């Protein structure tokens, strides 16, 4: 047992000065806890997340393609060496109405619990039937979708969702979480409000899409590695590259397939169109013909009617005339008959007389005949006379001839007279008979006429009626025809319109066909996975914090232990001298102090690492838990880290202990036995200004001289306190920076408080709503800007009215606050974009709009902006660069009054209107944003607490050392009759002044520390303000002072207990 007495001495020293021992241990513990905590927290975060990824099969590689992926693609990828598992699956977005809000759901397909990107079932069960689904159980389940309730989904686009899904209504049977979505941010969508709010998983058989949207792959052996380590990517990258190698071929195959299919479809569509067109036209022609026929029929009918009418009229007229004629004839006949009868009767008489005369003449003739016969005889005798002269003879002969013919004539005339007479007599009788007949005929004729007259009247009546009827019928036919014609016209128009539309579609299709890009595969590893990266970023930020803060603690801890050890060595001066005198070597004596420091440090390290490895990760993890959906933290014990931290701390304290003892050890034992020559009192600069100096009383003089005399203590205290102030200021500054984002962005820069998504029909409603004070119409589309390899997503904002928009959106330079006008030409970009792309005003960048069209634009301004990224340009300029007019789709408005109730009312009022698609309020945005950054508040709190403890330990330690160094002085002034508070004030004055100096220095340090941290923790799409509020300076000063007052209060009791007898002791 060599030197066991020395060991006992050491142990008793520790026992005897437990306060000092603990103060070294605690500063070490604090520093170690802070450092170890900040170092292990990101590790724990990553490990916990990685385990979660592994447990639920988060994909290592995700393949997406511009043209979808096929079953063959899946098989090809499966063939690749190193690929353990492949899943071809679908992802689409859909809208659902929940709690009167339109929400974007991302639909994933569910195959099995163990599928790639599997699920952790929290409530209910997994889907079994096609119409069942599970939804995400978020941290704050504000959607509050009850199990058993139904979610009706719609596509939010022209094409109905039923084009892509078998069912569109699903029963919620369970709530799940998946490592695929750690954060609330689930990405953007082209529908609804553009923000995916939740995800829903439905059985894969629901999907009717012809190609997979995603292929997920698990890489062999990747699970064994932490995916936040580089080794993981070494393994995965090999497979990624192999997939890249086959991608070209697969892209070609797919491109051809899609192109052919599209062509086919287009052909089909065209054919269908033409068929349809022909059919429609045919039908139209038929219709037209029918109408023409109808027209003709009517004309014919009209003509017939007209003719019939004329005929009828004519017939009637004729009938009437005929009747009149007949009557007239009849009357004439009767008259004639009468007159004929009269003349007949007269003629009869004449005839009868003639008869008698004729009879007389006949008699006369008959009497002439014998004479003539005689004459003939005579003549004949005369002629026979042969003497007669020839001439005479001739004359006689003629005479004879004459007489013979006369005779013959007479004979004939008698005969004809007789005959005539008889004939006349018969004729007369006949005439009489005829009269008699005529009379009868006339009578019957009259009778017939009368009858015919009656007939005619009847016929006329009937005929008129018939005509009337016919006309009526005709009229009706005409009306019908007109109707038919109109119908024809409208159906023709409709048909034409439809046809035009159909043609338009075909043309669209043709255009699309021309625009069909070749399939492009995107092979994404986890580095392209939002949740993975976002969460990794959070861990990195903590890592970043861990690089700055612990340096403070290390320095302060080293200084504290140096001071403490120096003091201890000072106190033990005589002891050291004695040991030296007894013959102990330098090393042995130094080892006493080194051992003292070592044990304190080891003790501190154990406690510190214990706290650091448990408390810090838990607090930080839970803080981030507000933002991320994760299982509870898995605490890791990183032995190398613990050992290295311990070694560094041990090194620091033992070196300080060695340095402290080394000074004394140089002296010889005799001088060590003597009290150390007191340090010279020194005049300070201030004494050269007697006006001030002579006015100070002795205690200020002591204080001031003390401050400047003990430089080490001065710097240490100032540094410790400055560190504390800087930490507190940084902590408050972080809050300010976050506040700035919210207040500046949504107060100063964006003065509007409502955003209304609308189409051209919707604008007119806005004027009628009195809750909206002012509004402006803009176009908002998501696009991106790029320069070189860097591409950043932005919102493109195109205001309709370039002048009045500045009431709602203020563009300004952050540094000097000068206003930037909305540009007519060129683009104004937000600050972060400028930083990320490293561009300045006047540079040219690529602007890509939502149609993936690219244009080169000139930056004409860079505007202050904190959240998201924007590019502002005028509608003319937009049209100029993209060759397409701007479609205004949003209105920004200022409300008369804002509170939840008014907003809800307004929202309901607006959304019911046609043409208004969405309504969102900045207050909601603000709240969301505040929620997401609230987690940082915990980190802030951790920092304040740590800073506080740092300040406390440092001040306590220093005051402690200060008191023990000056215990005689204190005892003396007590003996001199100083009251307790005077004694305290005598000591505190120094502390107060040092605190004030330290605080001021700390404020300056804090500004830089804060700036450094804010730049380190900067997130995508968020630029933090770098200004710290005046209030925060005050707060951090007050807090530091409060800490120091607390320490001083604790010290007051210690001072009170300083025994006056100390003053009588000899100097040691």
């Amino acid at each position: 047992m060599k030197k066991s007495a020395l060991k006992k001495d050491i142990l008793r020293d520790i026992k005897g000065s437990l306060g000092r021992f603990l103060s070294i241990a605690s500063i070490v513990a604090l520093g170690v806890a802070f450092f170890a905590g900040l170092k292990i927290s990101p590790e724990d975060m990553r490990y916990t997340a990685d385990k979660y990824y592994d447990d639920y099969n988060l994909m290592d590689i995700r393949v997406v393609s511009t043209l979808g992926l096929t079953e063959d693609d899946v098989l090809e990828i499966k063939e690749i060496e190193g690929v353990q598992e492949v899943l071809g699956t679908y992802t689409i977005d859909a809208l659902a109405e929940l709690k009167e809000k339109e929400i974007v759901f991302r639909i994933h397909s569910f195959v099995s619990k163990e599928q790639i990107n599997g699920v952790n079932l929290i409530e209910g069960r997994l889907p079994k039937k096609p119409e069942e689904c599970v939804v995400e159980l978020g941290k704050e389940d504000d959607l509050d979708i009850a199990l058993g309730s139904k979610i009706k989904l719609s596509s939010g686009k022209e094409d109905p969702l039923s084009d892509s899904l078998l069912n569109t209504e699903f029963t919620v049977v369970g709530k799940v979480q998946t490592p695929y979505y750690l954060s609330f941010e689930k990405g953007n969508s082209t529908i609804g409000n553009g923000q995916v709010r939740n995800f829903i998983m439905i059985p894969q058989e629901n999907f009717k899409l012809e190609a997979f949207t995603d292929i997920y792959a698990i890489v062999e052996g990747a699970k064994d590695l932490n995916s936040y380590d580089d080794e993981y990517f070494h393994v995965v990258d090999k497979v990624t590259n192999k997939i890249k190698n086959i991608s070209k071929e697969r892209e070609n195959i797919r491109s051809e397939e899609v192109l052919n299919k599209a062509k086919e479809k287009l052909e089909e569509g065209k054919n269908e169109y033409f068929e349809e067109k022909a059919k429609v036209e045919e039908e139209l022609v038929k219709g037209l013909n029918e109408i023409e026929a109808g027209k003709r029929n009517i004309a014919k009918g009209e003509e017939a009617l007209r003719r019939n009418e004329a005929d009828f009229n004519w017939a009637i007229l004729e009938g009437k005339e005929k009747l009149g004629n007949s009557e007239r004839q009849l009357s004439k006949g009767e008259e004639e008959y009468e007159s004929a009868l009269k003349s007949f009767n007269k003629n009869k008489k004449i005839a009868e007389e003639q008869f008698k005369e004729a009879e007389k003449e006949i008699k006369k003739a008959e009497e002439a005949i014998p004479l003539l016969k005689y004459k003939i005889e005579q003549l004949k005798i005369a002629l026979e006379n042969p003497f007669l002269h020839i001439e005479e003879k001739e004359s006689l002969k003629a005479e004879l001839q004459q007489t013979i013919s006369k005779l013959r004539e007479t004979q004939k005339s008698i005969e004809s007279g007789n005959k005539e007479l008889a004939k006349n007599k018969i004729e007369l009788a006949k005439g009489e008979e005829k009269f008699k007949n005529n009379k009868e005929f006339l009578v019957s004729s009259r009778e017939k006429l009368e009858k015919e007259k009656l007939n005619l009247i009847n016929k006329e009546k009937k005929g008129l009626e018939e005509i009337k009827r016919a006309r009526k019928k005709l009229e009706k036919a005409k009306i019908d025809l007109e109707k038919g014609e109109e119908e024809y016209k409208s159906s023709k128009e409709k048909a034409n319109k439809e046809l035009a539309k159909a043609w338009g579609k075909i043309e669209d299709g043709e255009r699309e066909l021309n625009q069909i890009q070749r399939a492009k595969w995107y092979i994404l590893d986890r580095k392209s996975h939002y949740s993975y990266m976002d969460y990794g970023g959070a861990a990195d930020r903590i890592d970043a914090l861990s690089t700055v803060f612990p340096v403070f603690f290390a320095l302060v801890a080293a200084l504290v232990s140096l001071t403490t050890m120096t003091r201890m060595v000072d106190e033990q001066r005589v002891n050291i001298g004695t040991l030296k005198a007894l013959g102990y070597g330098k090393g042995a004596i130094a080892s006493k102090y080194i051992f003292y420091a070592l044990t304190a440090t080891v003790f501190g390290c154990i406690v510190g690492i214990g706290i650091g490895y448990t408390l810090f990760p838990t607090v930080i993890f839970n803080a981030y838990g507000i933002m991320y959906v994760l299982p509870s933290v898995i605490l890791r014990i990183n032995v190398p880290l613990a050992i290295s931290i311990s070694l560094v701390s041990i090194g620091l304290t033992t070196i300080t202990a060695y340095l402290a003892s080394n000074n004394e050890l140089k002296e010889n034992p005799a001088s060590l036995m003597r009290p150390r020559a007191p340090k010279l009192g020194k005049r300070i600069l201030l004494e050269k200004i007697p006006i001030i100096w002579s006015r100070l009383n002795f205690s200020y003089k002591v204080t001031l001289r003390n401050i400047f005399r003990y430089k080490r203590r001065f710097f240490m205290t100032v540094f410790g306190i400055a560190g504390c102030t800087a930490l507190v200021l940084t902590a408050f500054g972080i809050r300010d920076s976050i506040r700035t984002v919210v207040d500046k962005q949504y107060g100063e820069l964006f003065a509007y408080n409502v955003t209304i998504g609308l189409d051209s029909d919707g604008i007119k409603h806005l004027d009628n709503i009195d809750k909206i004070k002012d509004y402006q119409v803009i176009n908002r589309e998501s696009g991106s800007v790029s320069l070189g390899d860097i591409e950043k997503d932005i919102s493109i904002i195109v205001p309709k009215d370039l002048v009045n928009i500045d009431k709602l959106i203020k563009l300004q330079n952050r540094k000097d606050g000068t206003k930037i006008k909305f540009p007519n030409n060129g683009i104004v970009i937000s600050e972060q974009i400028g930083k990320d792309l490293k561009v300045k005003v006047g540079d040219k960048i690529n602007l890509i709009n939502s149609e993936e069209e690219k244009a080169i634009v000139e930056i004409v301004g860079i505007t202050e902006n904190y959240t998201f990224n924007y590019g502002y340009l005028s509608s003319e300029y937009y049209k100029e660069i993209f060759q397409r007019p701007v479609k205004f789709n949003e209105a920004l408005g200022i409300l008369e009054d804002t509170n939840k109730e008014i907003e809800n009312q307004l929202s309901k009022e607006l959304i019911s209107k046609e043409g208004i698609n969405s309504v969102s309020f900045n207050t909601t945005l603000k709240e969301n944003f505040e929620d997401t950054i609230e987690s940082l508040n915990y980190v802030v709190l951790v920092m304040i607490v740590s800073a506080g403890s740092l300040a406390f330990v440092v001040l306590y330690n220093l005051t402690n050392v200060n008191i023990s160094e000056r215990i005689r002085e204190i005892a003396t002034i007590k003996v001199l009759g100083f009251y307790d508070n005077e004694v305290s004030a005598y000591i505190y004055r120094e502390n107060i002044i040092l605190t004030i100096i330290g605080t001021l220095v700390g404020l300056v340090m804090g500004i830089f520390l804060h700036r450094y941290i804010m730049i380190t923790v900067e997130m995508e799409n968020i630029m933090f303000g770098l200004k710290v509020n005046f209030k925060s300076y005050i707060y951090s000063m007050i807090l530091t002072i409060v800490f120091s007052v607390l320490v001083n209060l604790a010290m007051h009791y210690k001072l009170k207990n300083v025994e006056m007898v100390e003053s009588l002791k000899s100097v040691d």
Partner: protein
Amino acid sequence: MTSYIEFRNVKKIYRMGEVEISALNGVDFSIDRGEFVIIAGASGAGKSTILNILGGMDTATSGEVVVDNKKVSRYTNKELITYRRHDIGFVFQFYNLVQNLTALENVELASQICKNPLNPKEVLKSVGLSHRINNFPAQLSGGEQQRVAIARALAKNPKLLLCDEPTGALDYNTGKSILKLLQDTCRQMNMTVVVITHNLAITPMGDKIIKVKNGIIEDQSINNSPTPVERIEW
């Protein structure tokens, strides 16, 4: 009529855990105004305890301490401070000067807190340090430092000057001169001075000599013809 200072059956018992150590076992003595008193005794005899109790730095466990008709033994802590502040001047063995203050400032340290102080410069002059008033203690010799300490005690214009081994850390000659200063002060300012020493050789210079042994007064004698310091040898 009671004396200026009176100790009546004063006992002091220190409790250290379960052990009781009796420092004073009933001390009785009295001092008159203007007397130069020497309390002598070996180390641990209890003389420092007497001084502490008399100076208001400690309280008696029992018994009565009266100073100038005031029962100091019944004072509260705060009254004790006031008592120290105004009535007591203390001179320590190791001077106990504030290193960061000059001689003058060290005197002011005391004079600035009491009711009726003397002029610090005058006092320093009277102790023969007028040429050193702006020096820091570290720049002064031991005797000079003790003179500053005495000046600091005197400047308060106290009723009672208590000196705890004032020569203990000084060499022979300096010690003598300091004792002379104290004796002269007593005579000139009619100040009651109590000096504690283990050096019996200097007892002849006191007006009254109190010998302490084992916590009790061994001997109390009045010296009607005190020897001047110059003639004392040790």
